[in-house]
């Protein structure tokens, strides 16, 4: 990530309040709950993965065990997002 350490994430990710476009994916039970697999958010105020969830899920509370990835790397909900990121939300994994 091309963030700088000490600034608050919001001002880093979108310093001049351009409209960012973020691709969003939901998998498995979250896909069924939210009712969509793929969507995108376009916003001037989104700065973290948590913000993306709120916009993309229609404001529903995030289940406690939700896993999140930005550009296919695991992150937590505070992780900043930038224009063009792909953010994914999914329940605990059950492969193998």
């Amino acid at each position, binding site marked *: 990530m091309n963030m700088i350490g000490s600034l608050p994430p919001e001002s880093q990710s979108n310093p001049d309040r351009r409209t960012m476009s973020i691709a969003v994916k939901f998998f498995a039970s979250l896909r069924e709950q939210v009712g969509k697999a793929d969507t995108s958010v376009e916003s001037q105020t989104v700065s973290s993965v948590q913000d993306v969830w709120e916009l993309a899920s229609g404001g529903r509370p995030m289940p406690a065990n939700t896993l999140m990835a930005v550009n296919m790397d695991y992150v937590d909900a505070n992780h900043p997002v930038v224009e063009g990121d792909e953010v994914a939300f999914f329940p605990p994994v*059950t492969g193998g």
Partner: protein
Amino acid sequence: MTVEIRNQDFDPYQEVSAYQREVLQADGKYGATAVFVGSMRDFNEGDEIRAMTLEHYPEMTEQYLEKISREAKQRWDLIDSLIIHRVGDVSPNEPIVVVAVWSAHRAAAYEANRYLMEELKSRAPFWKKETLVQGSRWVEKNT
């Protein structure tokens, strides 16, 4: 170091055998091969399971499996590893995953194989939905 996602039934033993013969080409170098096969049971949490659908996150799944394969190779003295994981509609007794690890000595093969399976089970983005006699459910406990 190979990772494959398959959407069709496969024979894990033929796969390991063919990989060893055609790709590995390290005859006489490995003294140890550890293979784990996870296959679909017809019962879970006390219920009969008729079928299963395995969903994954294309690209992230492969990247994650490649990452843990690289980590295993850094941590143990391995010759090679192979992971094949099934997605899509799976029937009871079909293989879901095969992990094979080749090394000169057995400790590395055993330990790396277990490591790969534990990392795969805990973090690789796959999700199982079971079809029961009536209805279906997402698997929540991945024991």
